[in-house]
């Protein structure tokens, strides 16, 4: 299994094995990039000298105007030094496929939770894809299935912050007064404005926040750490694990490299100063709560469906809006209340909304029938 790291100038490249890969981030193309065009070209040349594989990250999302600006930036970069371009915006993907000759690493981390879609992304790129970068919301069973089905390497985040919110708007600087020095600097340079957010929803405290020229980003309060599951990742068929230490002062590179070498994360875990989670690597059950979001008893089930009780007038009548099957004197009905109780009764009196006696009421009409206790408005009415 290979590993890929984000390049920073302070990395001691001699520590890394030759099959290590690096991501180079341009200030204008990458969400958290800090390097200018000149620095990007220099970084790429330096990495190339060491024999590393290099990817240029173009992961921002772009409006039409921004896209055209960024294409101009891209044209200034010495792309021949790069083995691939990493892109998420379909506009960027299309541009690379259409206008450039390099490989593309498809960032499919947002959504893309089905094989049909992933395969179609790959097919669209006409043999140019060198890997797919998959979502941390996928569990190991799914990853394993995908690795067996796809004829391409899969990259997966093994260590780092989990991005949970991305907007182009400047949400942090908006909270600061105009004379705030840091705000002034961050708005004219690419110095990041950083903060932590505490939601009123306890216990969610300490969301890392970053604002820069690409917008505002929020991360999970804990880091994703799967370095103690490298064997599992390998068994799942993950070809490349991504290590993201961009936001750490103490990057623990030596311990990370040792872990990658030995698959023993004990020493690293002891030194790592952040709370961490395994995300959805074991299982993803984020749809199980859906059935609790609404009262399924109020959902009409159409076989024998008549309509809905709109009003009950104790001892006098129940007003029913006929939505499907007509209602006649003598019909035997079943009512399902919002609480889930089932009541049964027979129609022996039927009136229209003028109070005139009728023998039948049809779809779209409002009718009043004899009262029956314990039936409430919103109860659903069916023929027995």
């Amino acid at each position, binding site marked *: 299994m290979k590993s890929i790291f984000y390049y920073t100038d302070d990395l001691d490249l001699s520590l890394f094995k030759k099959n290590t890969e690096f991501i180079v981030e341009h200030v204008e193309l990458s969400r958290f990039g800090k390097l200018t065009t000149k620095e990007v070209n220099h970084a790429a040349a330096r990495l190339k000298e060491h024999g590393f594989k290099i990817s240029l990250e173009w992961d921002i999302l772009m409006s039409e105007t921004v896209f055209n600006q960024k294409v101009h930036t891209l044209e200034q970069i010495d792309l021949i030094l790069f083995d691939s371009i990493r892109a998420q915006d379909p506009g960027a993907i299309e541009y690379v496929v259409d206008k450039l000759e390099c490989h593309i690493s498809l960032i499919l981390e947002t959504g893309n939770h089905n094989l049909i879609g992933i395969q179609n*992304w790959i097919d669209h790129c006409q043999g140019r894809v060198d890997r797919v970068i998959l979502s941390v919301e996928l569990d190991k069973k799914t990853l394993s299935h995908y690795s067996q089905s796809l004829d391409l390497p899969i990259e997966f985040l093994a260590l780092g912050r989990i991005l949970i919110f991305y907007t182009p708007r400047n949400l942090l600087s908006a909270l600061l007064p105009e004379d705030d020095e840091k705000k002034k600097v961050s708005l004219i340079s690419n110095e990041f404005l950083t903060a932590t*957010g505490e939601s009123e929803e306890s216990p969610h405290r300490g969301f890392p926040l970053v604002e820069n020229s690409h917008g505002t980003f929020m991360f999970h309060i804990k880091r994703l750490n799967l370095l103690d599951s490298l064997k599992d990742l390998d068994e799942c068929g993950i070809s490349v694990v991504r290590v993201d230490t961009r936001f750490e002062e103490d990057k623990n590179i030596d311990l990370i490299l040792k872990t990658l070498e030995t698959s023993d994360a004990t020493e690293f875990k002891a030194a790592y100063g952040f709370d961490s989670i395994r995300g959805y690597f074991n299982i993803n059950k984020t749809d199980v709560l859906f059935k609790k979001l609404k009262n399924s008893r109020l959902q009409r089930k159409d076989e024998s469906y008549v309509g809905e009780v709109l009003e009950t007038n104790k001892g006098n009548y129940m007003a029913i809006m006929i939505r499907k099957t007509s209602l006649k004197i003598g019909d035997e009905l079943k009512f399902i209340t919002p609480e889930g109780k089932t009541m049964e009764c027979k129609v022996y009196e039927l009136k229209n909304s003028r109070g005139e006696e009728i023998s039948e009421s049809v779809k779209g009409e409002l009718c009043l029938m004899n009262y029956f206790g314990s039936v409430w408005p919103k109860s659903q009415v069916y023929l027995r």
Partner: protein
Amino acid sequence: MSRFTPELLAPAGSLDKLKVAISYGANAVYLGGLKFGLRSAAENFTEEELIEGVEFAHSKDAKVYVVLNGFLHDKDLDELPKFVKFLDSIKIDAVIVSDLGVIKTVLSNSSIPVHLSTQASCLNTSAAKLWKKMGVERIVVGRETSIAEAGKIKKEAGIEVEMFVHGSMCMAYSGNCTISNFTQGRDSNRGGCAHSCRFEYSIDFDHLDTTEKKSAFFMSSTDLNGIKVLPEYIDAEIDSIKVEGRMKSHLYAGTISKTYSEALNYYKEHGDFLSDSLKNWDNELKKVTHRTYAQANLIDIAGVETIFNEREVSSEHDYVLVGRVIDVNPGDSIIIEVRNAWNSGDELEILPFSGETIIFNSTEFSTLMNEKLTRTKPTSLVKIPFFDNVEINNILRKRVAQ
């Protein structure tokens, strides 16, 4: 002379709201089935309701688009073909999709046109060209797109463009927010969004002392209101203008549909807008519950004014929905399903499907058994005197005491 105007696309959170929106002038509605969409808590439509909804819409020359815009997982796709074939059989007009796997599943199981959901955050011409190659016929552009950019995308990519004109806004790039997934265990991109962006946060800036924490609803967006820039939508030849709000009330569905529809019809007839008319329509739109209105990115890049730094309960509204007409006995009475109580003497307004609002003092109203009332109560049915031009599904509203 018939002039180009965009299609008015309204939300239909339920069968009743579908009828309300179309009756008030929407040219098309979008709605969800029981699965595969992004509003798990909405009423949504059973298959029978879908059939009835499509029949009703087509009888009024309106279109029905069904949202399948969740980021669906493999197991969801296993169930999708059957539903898609059903949708094809009832002749819906399009599906709104955000995931490539869903697009391909729809295309291989039906002949239903595919519209790309805003959830896919399609923001530029290059992306639109890619989606067109994937089989998409219409792009719902991301909310970060300006009208001018959307017009350019349409022309350069040669694809239909739909754009939001009104309603709540995601602050994040749509599809790029997973706060609910990681904090509530609910997949926001499969219908479980917990609206965490509307919560208050205490922000502790790294460069400031912790005593200087800022409390703010910093991720909450103001609502979109594009009525005043309708001329720009028309000039850019945007194919469809879309109103957000499947979870919102009948009053919302009716008021928004009526107002935008009147504005578009006015343009169709006259070829321009009068500033007074735009102002009047804008006033109408203030009568439904809303956060502070702004134009987001429609003209300029959204700035500080587009952050709704207030708690939700303080949403602004001038009027409340008091009821909906559910039966009309010509010359005799109108039956109202009461949603919010009113008292004898209150001034009420009935919104007919077209024409002037009917304003009256409600002094005579009774139960269906003709027992006189002085106050109504929610979920009851009451009888009021008959007025001309009132039809089933008209809505009643009341001004809120200011």
